[in-house]
């Protein structure tokens, strides 16, 4: 049902449109950063780095618009949840943009070295992360709680890919110490992808909160992190 004050609806829609724009951009930057890694394309990586600024700008726009709307219209109930979530999702997307940018920067370093054996596995992990992000953004637009929860539960697969890659990269670097520099970059790229996966689940949680008014909980299935000393 629309608001009696139609300008309120317009403002809410504008904010959600900005979020969608940010989401689309974050998805695209991630796709291009992965392509830069795969094709060893430093020029493409530079473009990703430059375009991340647009996400930062959008985040500020969303933040200003949401703050203003809260002050001027005192939103309640679901409207309030939509706005609080917009603030959190825009921050999350901004971080995803940063991580994509960081992958692009590492892609530039990697291109200066010879080809790395495990690139295709990293790309596969990247595509899964990207699919997760894309699905959670669709769930946000469609307000589809089930789809959001499905993304949230599938993140464990990204975690497991990361764990497998971590072991393989370590083995690879031990076998051939000339690969340490490029291997370490790849390790960071994999870690960035794993972080993007976590941020994606945070968006799932926001979709759930908007619809249900309560938190999704924190018992999300997670892959056991490797690389930490057993305590």
């Amino acid at each position, binding site marked *: 049902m629309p608001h*009696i004050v139609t300008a309120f609806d317009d403002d809410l829609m504008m904010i959600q449109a900005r979020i969608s724009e940010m989401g689309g951009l974050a998805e695209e930057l991630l796709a291009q950063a992965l392509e830069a890694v795969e094709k060893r394309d430093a020029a493409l990586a530079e473009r990703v780095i430059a375009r991340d600024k647009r996400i930062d700008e959008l985040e500020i726009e969303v933040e200003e618009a949401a703050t203003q709307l809260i002050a001027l219209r005192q939103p309640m*109930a679901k409207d309030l949840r939509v706005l609080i979530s917009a603030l959190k999702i825009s921050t999350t997307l901004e971080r995803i943009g940063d991580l994509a940018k960081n992958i692009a920067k590492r892609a530039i370093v990697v291109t200066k070295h010879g080809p790395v054996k495990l690139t295709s596995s990293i790309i596969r992990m990247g595509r899964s992360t990207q699919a997760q992000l894309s699905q959670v953004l669709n769930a946000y637009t469609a307000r589809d709680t089930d789809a959001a929860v499905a993304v949230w539960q599938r993140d464990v697969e990204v975690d497991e890919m990361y764990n497998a890659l971590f072991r393989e990269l370590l083995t690879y670097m031990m076998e051939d110490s000339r690969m340490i520099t490029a291997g370490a970059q790849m390790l960071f790229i994999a870690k960035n992808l794993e972080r993007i996966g976590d941020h994606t689940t945070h968006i799932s949680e926001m979709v759930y909160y908007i619809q249900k008014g309560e938190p999704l909980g924190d018992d999300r299935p997670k892959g056991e992190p490797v690389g930490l000393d057993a305590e």
Partner: protein
Amino acid sequence: MTNMRMAEQAARHQDNKIEARDVHVYYGANEAIKGVDVDILDKTVTAFIGPSGCGKSTFLRCLNRMNDTIDGCRITGQILMDGDDIYARSVDPVQLRAKVGMVFQKPNPFPKSIYDNVAYGPRIHGLVSNKADLDEVVEKSLRRAAIWDEAKDRLNEPGTGLSGGQQQRLCIARAIATAPEVLLMDEPCSALDPIATAQIEELIDELRSSFSVVIVTHSMQQAARVSQKTAFFHLGEVMEYDDTPKIFTNPENPKTQDYITGRYG
């Protein structure tokens, strides 16, 4: 900012001060209240919200039998205060109204001095025996209503000479001078500016340490700021009644949701 004590805003488990059971109110053939059940907690601010004409004032007036004075008004059901039926034959409505005070939308001081406005209730109810005691009750009530400093040097001037906000605080002083247990307020701030409104809200927050306060307000922000419990009225029924933070962040009933988000059609 006292309103922001969020942790405290969730009403603690408390005893019921008033229990309304299956209350119906008719004005002639028009059924204005259609079976309301509500528990009003002691030492808690309860807000009644809802669109105009949904019966908030009518229901509020049931709680101190003000509807008795309206021709053609008929009430069925039960209203218990501390477990006793306030509509029982043995209850004197005038005595009841000393225990259940009321403050109205428009400040309505009597055309008397500030002092006499406050002294009126204790006098007619015979609550004090001498002038010194009466002076004390007047001062205490004016202090409690946060109007003492502004009124103490003009106690013999007419109450109607005060500003709107001051008049409303004088009316609150008058209402609490009889040491009531429940204070009913029907849109007490709708004629006041934002500063006077903030002063009344601060006062309401202070008063709830001693009374059970029930406030009808058409400002949802005000309900959210001052109350711990909120009841949403719609067409003579209570659609939803819950802790205030719950009503304003995650109401259960879609009608409540539509109303508080400004989608009421």
